């Protein structure tokens, strides 16, 4: 503990005064600028040189290791942690812009009370009063509900413990990324096949053939940096040992992931399960040990909108491959038949006997209590029934991320007290009665279990890299302040949770007692075991029931909603994420609707025409982008824009496609968002999209 205190003190002493100096201009005016030196300089600090802290990226639940470069008390640059098993020193755009979240000018600067929900005006609140409110709320027992983000972190553990010991309701978790990935479906399929509810991990690096069913594993899927690393190895050829991997993708639109595929088959969304069964039959013909189902490959190919030859060619290629890998992605699973599809696709990985080996599938060692929409729906039902007095919201923005058809907003109105721990003034915070802002991730302690980015068991460490900018307080400390749990503060809680790991051993470092373990844990950026876990013995794989994709009515289109670099939408307040062009379309700062040029021509639509996309659940407006690589019967809208709150960089841009998603669940309890059918109506208006690519010549209409 002394360690932590000295760290905190150092950070305070470093001060923020020096920051101002950097920004002043280069003219004579900046000649004399006041500098505030340390009052007491820590011995390891060297003036004018950067200090690096290992921490964990919290931009998505993957849990990449991050090294933050700090300079004179300011966080300067996020870099990957080279020792971390998930990302090996690499980061994606979201992680790299973490500092823009930390220093976002629109952060909530202190605890506050909102007189009227939905209004921006706030009354200041002291932390003492705030803690009093929390204490009252927690004492209500089961009438107190928690809605948390997807991250499997220490807060979730704490709230779970709180639920057990103090009798509050079990925390509900939700995240838009989980919705798009249909995590519960994936985990449930793994449970049905292997008997354990774990996330599968696909060792792309060692495979020689990857067949993806709508998995955007190079963008946001589960652990994109880890999979991109694997993809990089997959694509390399090491002399005679390993040929360059071959990548086949079944997806309705050519996403960034499908974009680099050697073969792309634009299949009807929802037909992936059928295709997998057909592929199984074809492979069984070629000698694979797979249960044969009644699916006729020709009929399946037709239903999927591809040719039988293409499907047979895929089967031939797979039959020849030494280590083929079949990846079920969110677009294949977020359907009413998603669970069957997941099982069919996962089952394809079994016959080659590569489970747990290089180039094969394994199960993540961490237990996955994947959150599903079913839980959220249950929470909404309880809220509607008036069984929730206090709702704590942390790390999730349900009013933005949930499909509007669920009517979370209406349910929220029945909750007496909504307490938001939000760091940024998001849509949910706008409807909260109390704002008890948490530190931003770069200012706080924590740990996070790694679920999907590695076959090894790993716990990533989070530590503050700068002194908190504002009068914020760690949510764990806030909850502990009620005195219901026997921990003095956050760090003590975390350390207590690390004790089992300490005793297990076999990780990247050894420590005799918790103080040393803690120091090293922070220094290395986490603890991870050297060995990957083997998957359990497989259960008998019986063929899933074939389910035909939904039929398309007249004037209706299938809708693909996919997450971009904005992730679950919380990235929308990072100006550089907004200005990082979407690679496929190069659009920045806004939402668009992807339409096949041929369809657009039939509908008389041009680039930048504003159209109304309407489903049974709702409607949104966006500008048209003629996208050459999407099925003519499918539209696609990126997720993440359309904020009505969340600060100056996010507000009022684009549309939120969650508003058109119907609240239909599949067998595993995930939202069947792929079943959404929409119609498209021109509005007659134009709104030019901000595109990075050329708008004249070969790309645009003159």
């Amino acid at each position, binding site marked *: 503990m002394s360690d932590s205190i000295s760290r905190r003190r150092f950070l305070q002493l470093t001060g923020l005064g020096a920051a101002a100096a950097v920004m002043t201009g280069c003219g004579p005016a900046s000649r004399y600028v006041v500098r505030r030196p340390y009052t007491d300089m820590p011995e390891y600090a060297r003036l004018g040189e950067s200090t690096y802290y290992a921490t964990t990226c919290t931009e998505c639940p993957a849990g990449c290791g991050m090294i933050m470069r700090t300079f004179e008390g300011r966080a300067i640059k996020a870099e990957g942690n080279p020792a971390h098993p998930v990302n090996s020193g690499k980061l994606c755009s979201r992680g790299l812009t973490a500092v823009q979240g930390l220093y976002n000018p629109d952060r909530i600067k202190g605890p506050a009370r909102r007189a009227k929900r939905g209004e921006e005006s706030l009354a200041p609140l002291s932390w003492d009063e705030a803690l009093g409110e929390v204490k009252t709320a927690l004492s209500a027992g089961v009438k107190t509900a928690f809605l948390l983000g997807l991250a499997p972190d220490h807060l979730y553990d704490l709230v779970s413990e709180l639920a057990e010991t103090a009798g509050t309701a079990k925390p509900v978790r939700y995240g838009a990324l989980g919705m798009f990935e249909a995590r519960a479906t994936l985990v449930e399929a793994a449970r049905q096949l292997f008997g354990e509810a774990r996330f599968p991990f696909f060792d792309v690096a060692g495979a020689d053939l990857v067949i993806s069913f709508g998995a955007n594993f190079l963008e946001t899927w589960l652990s994109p940096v880890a999979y991109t690393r694997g993809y990089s190895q997959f694509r390399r050829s090491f002399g005679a040992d390993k040929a360059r991997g071959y990548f086949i993708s079944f997806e309705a639109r050519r996403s960034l992931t499908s974009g680099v595929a050697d073969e792309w088959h634009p299949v009807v969304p929802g037909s992936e399960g059928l295709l997998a069964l057909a592929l199984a039959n074809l492979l069984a013909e070629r000698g694979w040990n797979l249960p044969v189902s009644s699916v006729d490959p020709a009929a399946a190919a037709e239903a999927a909108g591809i040719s039988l030859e293409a499907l047979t060619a895929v089967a031939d290629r797979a039959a020849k491959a030494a280590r083929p890998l079949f990846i079920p992605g969110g677009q294949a699973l977020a359907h009413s038949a998603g669970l069957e599809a997941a099982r069919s696709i996962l089952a394809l990985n079994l016959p080659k006997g590569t489970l747990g080996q290089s180039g094969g599938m394994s199960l993540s060692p961490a237990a996955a209590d994947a959150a599903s929409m079913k839980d959220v729906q249950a929470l909404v039902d309880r809220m509607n029934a008036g069984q929730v007095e206090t709702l704590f919201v942390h790390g999730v923005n349900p009013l933005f991320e949930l499909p509007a058809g669920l009517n979370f907003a209406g349910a929220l109105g029945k909750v007496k007290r909504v307490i938001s721990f939000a760091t940024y003034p998001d849509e949910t915070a706008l409807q909260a009665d109390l704002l008890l802002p948490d530190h931003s991730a770069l200012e706080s302690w924590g740990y996070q279990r790694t679920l999907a980015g590695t076959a090894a068991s790993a716990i990533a460490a989070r530590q503050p890299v700068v002194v908190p900018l504002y009068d914020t307080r760690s949510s764990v400390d806030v909850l502990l302040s009620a005195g219901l749990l026997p921990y003095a503060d956050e760090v003590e809680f975390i350390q207590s949770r690390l004790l089992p790991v300490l005793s297990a051993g076999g990780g990247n470092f050894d420590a005799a007692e918790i103080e040393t373990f803690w120091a090293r844990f922070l220094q290395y950026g986490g603890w991870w075991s050297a060995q990957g876990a083997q998957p359990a013995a497989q259960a008998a794989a019986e063929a899933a029931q074939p389910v035909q994709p939904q039929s398309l009515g007249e004037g209706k289109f299938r809708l693909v909603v996919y997450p971009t670099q904005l992730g679950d939408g919380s990235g929308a307040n990072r100006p550089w994420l907004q200005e990082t062009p979407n690679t496929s379309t190069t659009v920045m700062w806004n939402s668009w609707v992807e339409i096949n040029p041929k369809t657009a021509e039939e509908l008389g639509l041009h680039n930048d025409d504003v159209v109304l996309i309407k489903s049974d659940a709702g409607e949104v407006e966006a500008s048209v982008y003629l996208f050459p690589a999407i099925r003519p019967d499918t539209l696609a809208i990126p997720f993440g824009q359309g904020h009505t709150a969340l600060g100056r960089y996010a507000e009022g841009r684009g549309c939120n496609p969650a508003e058109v998603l119907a609240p239909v669940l599949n067998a595993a309890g995930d939202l069947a968002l792929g079943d959404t059918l929409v119609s498209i109506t021109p509005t007659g208006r134009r709104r030019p999209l901000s595109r990075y690519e050329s*708008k004249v*010549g*070969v790309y645009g209409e003159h």
Partner: protein
Amino acid sequence: MAAEVKPIPNAIPSPHAAEEEDLREHLMFDPRPREEMNRMVMDSMTHTTPRYWIVVGILAVLTAVLLYGVWGYMIFTGIGISGERRPNYWGIFIVSLVFWIGISHAGTFVSAILRVFKAEFRRPFTRAAELMTTFGLAAGALWPLIHLGRVWVFYWMIPYPNARWLWPNFRSPLVWDFMAITTYLLSSTIYLYLPLLPDLAMARDRTKGWRHVVYKFLALGWRGTEAEWFRLRKAINIFAIAIIPVMFSVHTIVSWDFAVAQTGGWNSTIFGPYFIIGAILSGVSAVVTILIILRATLKNMDYFIRLEHIDALGKLLLVFSMAWAYFFFNDYMVSWYGGSEVVRTILTFHASGPSAWIWYVMLLCNVAIPWLTLWSKKLRRTPWLMLIVTLGINVGMYFERYTIIPITLGHQRMPFDWGEYTPRLPEISLALGSLCLFMLLYMLASRFIPMVPVWEVREGQEAHQLRKVGKTVVPSVSELE
């Protein structure tokens, strides 16, 4: 003066009166006493109507707001208020630069080249053309400054010893530009001033008050002694000969701003002469425009500036329009034949892209209209038509530069980075502002500088005599030198 040719005194009635009457259409054969001409010129300078001052006032306000106001605003906010973007890093600013520098070629062309080749019709309007050169350069020299991102450090382009040990990069065409424009501005101003000395002395002798003081100062004590005339003639001769290569070099260097770049569509050896021809075409047509306006608005000018002059310049225009078309064709022909895909894409884009109308207007104004009208003597002598034609040529030439600069820049080797440039209001305002500045300077100068070089006209009239050959009278030109 050839001794055997006895001048036929104007006063004596001639047996060939009818033929003489025809010849009187020419200024040179329609002499008036020097005193009267002096008075006419002085009247043109001193007689102002309220309308004149209203126009000057409006122009002054427009210049202040459109040019200096917007420029100041741009300096304080950034050059982004213009429509420039990647890849069209140069837009109207450089178009206007090339345009005004081009305009400024006319003065030297009319005054120096025609002087060296003793084209007598030049005499009454050399001054007007030289003024156009100087003011055109004054308007043009603003543009390199306006277009700078950080105009407050423009002096880093000037070679001077400094504490940083740094000199300009003399390998940069922009430094050549800077030097060439400076040289041209200085020498054309001097070249305007030297032949002005006798006229300033004339004005000095005919004015009182502040004008007298100023003219007295400017005339440098001119008396008209033999030595002074001799020196003046010497100096003007040196200038007339030396300024011609300077003029050619200036626009060649402006063309090198583009031609030395590897940019597709710019990298062409033909750009030097192409630009010069274009410059002379636009300059001469601007001279015609101005002469027509001067003739219509300035007092007594219809005596000095006659249809014969507009007619003669019209013929020149036709020649230059043809020469321009030749170079234009040449540029296309060679690029097309060379088969460079980059250049072919650009040239195709000129004629078929979203800005193709600019290309067509350019050809219409520079080729079609001049060729259709200027062949006819009758049309050449119709001032309002010539005004339209010459204004059209200048619009066409502006569009030519527009095609060459931003449109070409938008279509380079990286198709992903192609772009289209649309000028924004501040840029257009600046361009109009510089036009206002030019007009303002010209109008003010017309009140202050004798718009006609009386002594040169008189010199010409002295030299032009009628001579009887056989049964008729023919003009004979002798030289006074």
